[in-house]
Structures are given as C-alpha cells and as structure tokens.
C-alpha cells in the first residue's frame, strides 16, 4: 500500500519472490529462535505493506480456507479432551497387557495403537500425546526406550494418510483438490498399509536385539490414570461416533472441520459436566501460533501465485514428470518429501497445492498422481529427518563434529534408512493403483 509508484511485472515478481524466499529461509533457519508463525506473518505483513498483495485478496484467501483453520482447531481440541479423559494412557496400558510380557508384541501393539490414533485423531495426537505416554510406560516396564519412542514418532507420519483426517496436511491439499472418499481410499489407503508394514518390519530387524526380553506387567499396577470413569466412558462412546462421522462426511465431501468442531463440542460438554476440563483449559492446549503460521503462509503463497510463479513451478513438475502418471507420482513424491525436509511440511503442502493448480489441464491420472503424491510425500517426508528439517540435522552434525553425543542423530540414522524405502514402495503402489 505504500508503493505509490508503478512497478513493472518483473520488479514485482522479483520482490515477491525475494520476500517468499526469505520467509521460507527464515522458517528453515529460525534466526534468534523466532517461531515460525512470526516469520510467516512478517513475510505476509511485508507483502501487504508494500502493496504486493491486495488486502482484499489476502482476506479472501484466508476466508476461503476456513475449513483448514477450523479443522486444526477441532483436531487439537479433540485430542486434548480425549487426553484429559485418560484415553491414551488407558489404551497404552491395554496395549501392554495384550502383549503378554513380550517386548516384541508390545512394539507391534504400539505400532497398531499409533496407527489407530493417527487415523482418527491425526498424527499430532500420536506424536505429541502418545509418545510421552509410551515413554512413561516402557520406563516403568524397564524396557529399552528408543525403539518405542521412535515407533511412535515414525508411525505418526507413516499412518497419517490412512484417511483424510489423519493429517491436517491432507485437509490443506483436499481443500483445493476435493477427492471423493473412494478415490482417496483407492489411492492412499493401500499404500499406507504397505508403508506401515515396511516401517514395522524394518524396526523389528533394526531393534531385534533390544526386543529379545520380556517384561513384568505388574510394574504397571500403579499407573492407572482414568481420573473420572464416567467421562472416560463417555469419551469412549463419542470418539467412535466422531470417527464414523468423519468417514460419512468424507464420503459426502462435507467439511471435516465441522465434524471435528462438533465432536470437540460434544466432548467439552462432557468434560465441563463432569468437571474434568473447561473451555479455558482446552484453549491452553491449543497452539494458537499455528493459525498465524498457516495464515502467513497462505498469504505469501497467494502473492507468489499472482506472479504466476507457482503455475510455472507446476508446469515444471509436469514437464519433469514427462506427462505420465508414473513420472507424476515419482516427481510429486520426491519433490514433496525433499521439500518437507527443507522447510516444514505445512508450507510445503501450501506451495505444492498452489503449484498443482498449474497441472489442471493434464490427464486425470497424471493430475490424480500429483495430488496423491503431494499428500503422500508431505505426510511421510518428515520421517526422513524426523526432527523436522535438514537445517536441524546440519546443526546436529556440526555439534557432532565438536565431539558431542547428540541422540537426534539416532533418529536421523533410522529415518535415512527406512524413509526412502517407504517412499519408493508407497509411490510405486500409488502408481499401480492409478492405472
């Protein structure tokens, strides 16, 4: 708005690109430990101030993507309310009881539990809520911690494309390219099962020596954590209902955010009624900065879109793919997976979603290949470095050179071994299913 003089298209494009690149680099490097939301909002604010994006356009972009924002809100509220009921703790204890003292079976059950939670309550719930619970559990059982900790971390992403609700990234992509449930399941459910199986097999091979022992379930006797049995039972009834509602809503392409919010409201009524949690406490469990981050990214990418750069990026992807479904899946997966490790997977999904609007005129299978590959790559890609970005890994490697033992590298070693395998197998499966 402060640029009152006329800018040529080239200057405008250069300015927008520069701001977008600096914003993405800032998210990657996080100077002065600034959080990603501030960086994304600063980029968006600068674009608005310089008049490089019309405020009305920016507002329309944000309003158009209301489903994404409300889904994040509903998802985080649902997870925190289910956590307050002690559901995750209870499920983890049941997983241990059903393992009959076998470490191997407990790891298997952890994978199953993580898959189930990711499928219904999204990968956030598995990574952020289940992980510390499983850590507590295996610590009490005196089992090796790392295989179980890594299992939770990996399965959170590996099982995050079983359903559209399994990862908010899916909602970002599907808000622009609405796929009917059958197409989604046809293209992504079986690949998901394939990569989950690979994930499990590799883990059982990698940790075979650490999983040889048995555990005494009696060590868990003091660990029961259901605070209020009626609210717990209520949650156990409501959550399957929400899962069913998600499936029906996906089938009818009804906004999933409404289901998530309605489900959260139902649980909140119970939580307030039985004095387990109130709205203020729920709001403390919600990461509000995520909304700023997504809003900032939407505006930055919209400005880039207006310069036609994302469309050209889409064309480049199409060109690299050779116009066929095989190339689309491979290029889409590789691009998304690498991108999610360079920057966070949220901005990568926003960028790719915008770019894929440039491949609308391609054949249906090619277009579907790109969409499925974007979801697949952005969901599974973070497992490559697991700590979020290559920048973090580089930092860990620098620390290592200074002769410091950094356990984050343990993650990296497993990620670099298992993720390319899963990406390859999953993308081949998607391609086979496209034909």
């Amino acid at each position, binding site marked *: 708005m402060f640029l009152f003089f006329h800018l040529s298209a080239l200057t405008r494009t250069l300015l927008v690109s520069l701001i977008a690149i600096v914003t993405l680099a800032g998210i990657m490097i996080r100077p002065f430990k600034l*959080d*990603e*939301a501030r960086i994304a909002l600063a980029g968006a604010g600068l674009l608005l101030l310089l008049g490089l994006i019309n405020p009305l356009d920016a507002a329309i972009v944000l309003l158009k993507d209301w489903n994404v924002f409300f889904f994040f809100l509903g998802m985080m509220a649902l997870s925190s309310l289910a956590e307050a009921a002690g559901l995750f703790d209870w499920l983890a204890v049941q997983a241990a009881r059903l393992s009959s003292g076998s*470490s191997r079976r407990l790891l298997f059950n952890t994978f199953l539990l993580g898959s189930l939670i990711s499928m219904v309550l999204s990968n*956030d719930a598995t*990574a*952020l809520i289940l*992980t*510390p619970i499983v*850590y*507590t*559990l295996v*610590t*009490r059982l*005196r*089992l*090796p*911690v*790392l295989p179980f*900790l890594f299992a939770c*971390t990996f399965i959170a992403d590996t099982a995050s494309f079983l359903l559209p609700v399994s990862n908010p990234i899916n909602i970002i992509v599907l808000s622009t390219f609405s796929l009917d449930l059958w197409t989604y399941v046809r293209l992504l459910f079986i690949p998901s099962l394939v990569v989950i199986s690979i994930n499990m097999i590799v883990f059982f091979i990698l940790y*075979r*020596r*650490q*999983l*040889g*022992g*048995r555990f005494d379930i009696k*060590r868990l006797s*003091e*660990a029961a*954590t259901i605070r209020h049995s009626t609210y717990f039972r209520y949650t156990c009834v409501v959550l399957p209902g929400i899962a069913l509602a998600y499936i029906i809503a996906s089938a009818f392409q009804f906004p999933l955010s409404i289901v998530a919010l309605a489900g959260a409201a139902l649980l909140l009524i119970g939580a307030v009624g039985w004095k387990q949690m109130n709205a203020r406490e729920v709001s403390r*469990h919600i*990461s509000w*900065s*995520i909304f700023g*981050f997504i809003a900032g990214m939407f505006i930055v990418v919209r400005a880039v879109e207006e310069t036609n750069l994302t469309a050209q990026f889409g064309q480049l992807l199409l060109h690299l793919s050779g116009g066929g479904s095989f190339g689309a899946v491979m290029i889409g997966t590789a691009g998304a997976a690498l991108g999610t490790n360079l920057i*966070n997977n*949220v901005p990568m999904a926003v960028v790719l979603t915008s770019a894929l609007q440039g491949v609308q005129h391609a054949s249906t299978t090619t277009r579907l290949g790109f969409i499925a590959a974007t979801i697949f790559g952005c969901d599974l890609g*973070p497992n490559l470095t*697991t*700590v*979020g970005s290559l920048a*973090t890994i580089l930092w860990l490697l620098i620390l290592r050179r200074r002769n410091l*033992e950094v*356990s*984050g590298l343990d*993650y990296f070693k497993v990620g670099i071994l298992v993720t390319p395998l899963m990406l390859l197998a999953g993308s081949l499966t998607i391609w086979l299913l496209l034909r």
Partner: protein
Amino acid sequence: MRVLCCLDGTNIEALSKAITTMLRPDTLAIGLLYVIDSGPHGEMERQRERFLRQAELAPGRREQLRQAEEASAQDILEEGSRNLAGAERLQRRGRPEREIVNCAVEWNADLILLCPRTTYGSKPTIGPKSVGRVARFVLDHAACPVLLVRPITREPFPIPR
C-alpha cells in the same frame, strides 16, 4: 578400594558376580550408580517443535514422566542393593556416559565397573560393535581404571587367522 558399579537395569547379576569372583568384596567400598537418561526428553522436545508446539510438555505430563523415571531408578537401585548389600546408592540424571565419568571423579572411584552394552534378553555379542556408546565414552574419558564385564563366550571361535 572404591568401586563404582554402573547399573542399567539388566546388568546387576553380571556386576555382582564379577565383584564376588574377581575382587574381594569385604575390602571394597561399593557404589551403585544409575543414571536417568535425559536424551529421550530432548527427542520429545524436538518432536514437539516440529509440530509447532512449545518444546516443554504440559506440567502434569512432565510430572508423570518424572515419577516413572524415579520409580524405575529406585527399583533398579533397590535390586542392586539386594545383590550387593551395604553398597552406597547414587542416582544421577543426564547423559549417562557423562554422568558416569563425572560421578566417578566426585565419588573418588578407584575402579568403574560396567557392561559393554545393555542386553535386553538377548545374548551379549562380541565383535566390532560389542562395546556400546556409553561404555566407549567411559573407556575414553574416565579418570580411573574401567573394568568391562561380560560373560564368557566361545561360540564364534576360532577367529579366522
């Protein structure tokens, strides 16, 4: 002589057997050390940051983790005391390899006793990777002699000449 035994939850029998067979227990001051590994907390914090959340867990959950770690540590030290009566219990929190080295100096240990790596039900291995990260670090950095304890094995012999 002051002997610092480094417990990992699986090695108390091996360590106590080594003390009774190789050393004279009645002449020893024995310390039982267990270190609560802080590494997994770092992993969980990094994971939370990746999901754009505050690195620290909620206070309730943090307390739950702390209680589990303390209970497990007490359990392991208790087991150690049953095997080596009269031993002094020492508990630390941090990176195990560093805590062992530092604790040995603070406690004036003359000898550190530990197993090459934790074996969860599997057979101890010999070969290039038989010494784990913690034992390797302690061997490299300890200010006193270090005794690595592992059972006698004959399986892969003779080694090709």
